[in-house]
Structure formats: C-alpha cells, structure tokens
C-alpha cells in the first residue's frame, strides 16, 4: 500500500487490502485499517501479514 491514490480509491469502496511485511505490520495497521473502521461504514479487509512466510523478521521487543 505504497500508493496513497489507490489507497484512497479502495477506501472509498469500503474495501481494503493490507499486505504488510514483517516489522511494518504495526505501522501499516496504524495507517490503514484502524482509521477507517467506523460504526456505520461497511468494512471489508484482507489483512495479509508476512507471517508465517520467510523471512522470519521480528523486532527485538
């Protein structure tokens, strides 16, 4: 989800696909899924994190 224009289009349709990789998963969530979850708006999300595919990347904490 690098292209903000396509993200806007997808959000307008109430549909979102998030393909997050490794340590970026948390950032991608903060930027995409969480802000658009609203009570009266239908929500369709594919949340496809990097796990459990290689590489096995995880922050130290």
């Amino acid at each position, binding site marked *: 989800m690098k292209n903000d224009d396509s993200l806007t289009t997808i959000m307008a349709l109430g549909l979102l696909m998030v393909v997050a990789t490794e340590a970026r998963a948390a950032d991608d969530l903060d930027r995409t899924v969480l802000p658009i979850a609203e009570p009266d708006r239908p929500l369709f999300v594919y949340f496809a*994190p990097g796990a459990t595919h290689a590489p096995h990347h995880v922050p130290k904490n």
Partner: protein
Amino acid sequence: MPEGTTLAPKPAAIPDWDSLSADEKRLFAHQVEVFAAYVEMTDHEIGRVVEAVEATGQLDNTLIFLVYGDNGTSAEGGPTGTPNEVASVQGVHLPVEAQMKYYDAWGSEKTYPHMSIGWTWAFDTPFKWTKMVSSHFGGTKQGMAIAWPKVITDKGGIRHQFHHVIDIVPTILEVVGIPMPELIDGIKQSPMDGVSMAYTFDEKNADAPSTRTTQYFEMIGDHAIYHDGWILSSKVVRLPWDNSGTADKHPENWPWELYDLSADWTQYNDVSAQYPDKVKELEKLFWKEAERNQVLPMDSTTFTRSILPRPNLSAGRTVFTYSGEVTGTPNGNAPNILASSYNIKAEVEIPEGGAEGILVTHGGRFTGYGFYLLEAKPVYTWNLMGLKLVKWEGQDALTPGKHTLEFDFKYDGLGAETLKYGSPSGLGRSGTGYLTVDGEVVATQTMEQTVPMLMQWCESFDVGADTGSPVADEDYQPPFRFTGKLDKLTLTIDRPKLSEEDIQKLQAAMHANPAAD
C-alpha cells in the same frame, strides 16, 4: 484430531534431535525462538484489527476468517536453516559454525532467515511432510477459525468438513446475499470453483457431509486428488528443500499412494494395493481435474524453471542503455547477467569537488552487485549471498570532467543452456572481472564461485541510486544517489553458447541418468 489418529513418521532425511551437536541444538533452538516471536507479533497485530472492529460496536455482526500458516510450514531453510534464504534456495547451506556469527542478529533486517527442517516438520505435526509437498497434508492443511457472534452461536465448536481456501469467497457471497457476477465490465467470468461453507455455521450441521467433494493439488510436479473422503497422492520424489532442478522429470509417472481419510487422517496407511479400482477411478479424476485447471504439463524443476526465458522487456536483448536515474526495475524485466560474461560501461561527468553514489546496482544485502563511486573512487562489488563481498576498487579519485568507467566480466562456465539438458553444471562457475577507468585496467580479480540462479527477489535493478538494502553496508546506505552526471550507462551481456561437443557431452550425461531426461 479424532482418537486413534496415528502420528506420521519423520522422514529419514530429517535428523533426530538427539543426534545433533550442542551447537546445532543451540542454533536450531534460536532459529525457532525467532520464528515463535514472529508468529506472536503477528497474532498481536491481528488482535488489533479485531479490537478496531470491536471499537465500532460492530464485532457482533462481523464475519472473520482466520487462516494461519504458510501452506504447510516451510522447509526452504534446508537441513540446518539459514541466515539468508537467498543462499539456501540456491543450494548454498551454511555450516552451523558460520551461522553462529548471525546468532544475535537473527530476525533483524541484517538477516533473511529461515529455520531448519526439523522444526518445520514438527510444526506440521501430525501430518506428513511440509510446504511444497502438495500431495501430503503437511504441505497443505491449515487450521481455520471463523467467528461471527451474531450468527455462529456454537462458540468453540469444531468442524471437520473438507474444504479449500477457494471456498471462502463463495461463503461470503452467500451470507451477504450477493450472487457471483457472470460479467464484469462486459467480460464473461470464469465459473466459481468454490462452494460455500456457510452450512457449517449451524450446530445442527456439525457432522453434515462436506459440500466440497473433489479437490486437486499440484506443486512442482508433486500432486494429489481428494474425492469423497479418499486421497490419491503422488509419492514424494523431490525433497521439498532440494531446488537443484535434478529431480525426476516425469511427475506423470510418479507412483501413487492411496489413503482412506475417514479412518486415516495423517495418510499413514497406504492402501493402494488393497483398492486398485479406487486408484484407477481417482487417477482418472486427477487427470480430468488437472486438464480442467490448466495444471498440465506438470514440471518438477524448481528455481531453474524461474530463470528460463519468458516474455518480458529484457527477453532476447543483450544490450541495455540508460541515461540518468531509473530505479525499481523488477527482476523479471531487469538485465540478467548471471551465468554470463558482461560489460557495464558508465559515461560520467564529475563536477568540481568530486562525486559519489550509485551508477548501477541489482539486488542488495542478501545477493547482488553494485557499481558506484566512493569518495570519487570507482568500486565494483559482488555480494555473494551476504556471505562474502568481492570488490574491485580504483585507487585514484576521478578528476573533474568526463570519464568512462567499465566493469568487464569474463565468465568461465557453460551458462544456463545446460539446463536444457537437465544439468545445472553451467551455473555458478568462476569468472574474472576487470575494472577500467578511461580504458586503463585499475583492478583485476577472479571469483571462484558466482551466484548461480537468483538475485535477491525483493530487490530491484536500479540505475543512478539504490532502493531497498545496500549491496555493501560498510560502503553506503541507500539511496546513495549519484552526485555527478550519468550521461550514459550501457550494459552488454554475452551469454555462453554451447558447442556441438558440449551438447554431445551433456546429452551423454543425461542419457546415463534417465531421471534427468
């Protein structure tokens, strides 16, 4: 698992834990600790998605599917795991001692790691085999959880019906009442192969027969057909971590195994000899489904297949010219210089005060090459799978004005054409590189080994700046944009051609080994 389920035996190729050395145990345990942390982090993030839905007050009326895994757990790390998967999938397995150097960095951006196959197989318990083995459930079976509190009242209920991931979309369409469109933008759609799983939501249907009665499986020649509680599986011929491309080339002839899944969830008892008619029936069904789903012809080569010529922008071209910065060309459209001789010529203008930065690079920290100026001195670096940097360095800073820099590489091997004869012998061979400045050789070096097949797959080909990770962390960090003027960069590839004699030898070797035919 139903009571009486038999634990599948461990493949002989996977060593017993008790047979490992203390260092192996320590390394393999750390590899899997990192994997566990990775899974735990993902679980936490998925929890945040659920919380976000809950915060809207709509969780009760939200249908959530959770599928967790990687086909089966992946064996791509090979027998000892790897700090760099780009190495392991090309058949370069690091000794444990060498891997120990990465112990503290394991799981960070300085590694591209994967655990060893023993743990992989353990995560596929109680099934046989691992990811890439589509004939056995260790390579295909995943747990799935479905939640929809308003509708699914049998909280914690377990369902055993046989379904496939393609059944998720029809389930959603059924419950929201949207029919599958026959046309989209005037284009007739392929029929929906999936079937809805919504019937399983109701506790009354906990033991209802599965609405999916047939499913084929195929990956890299390994194949199977499920039908009405039976599965006909091809015998495992290629080990899932063997990417040499030398496995038997005729998957259509691989022996069958038959399992009665009603009594044998783990494919423990092969009953093919007992039910020859069932074998015939399912075999016929497999070929029908394989034909219908464009599976044929089956191909048992792995990563060697990925480097065969195919339609793309670089196919058939041997000369590539660039003027100025062009970054982000994906591997499929990038000039492929592996297993070949090549020349890279950069015509540059150096401003007063000197210049630095990338002329051209492909790949990065885990495999790749870079041609760049470091404090105005030319450097060409090969990163060999993160294990070794081979560098050609000019001693003198370039003076202001126009210069021509060249890196010329003469490859000693027979090249990728040996793959046509079932042999990877033309790949990864030695070669000698010459770095020249304005026609004068300033550095010469021979590489005993070269990268055989693959550049780092998540990186790209970049001219004038670097994206992703650097080829040499000790020299620069991206983007390391070129601060001079790149008038023209020309990359010329001279692929080896097989002589008649080479072909005869390769054919003789192939006929001596019918498996490779």
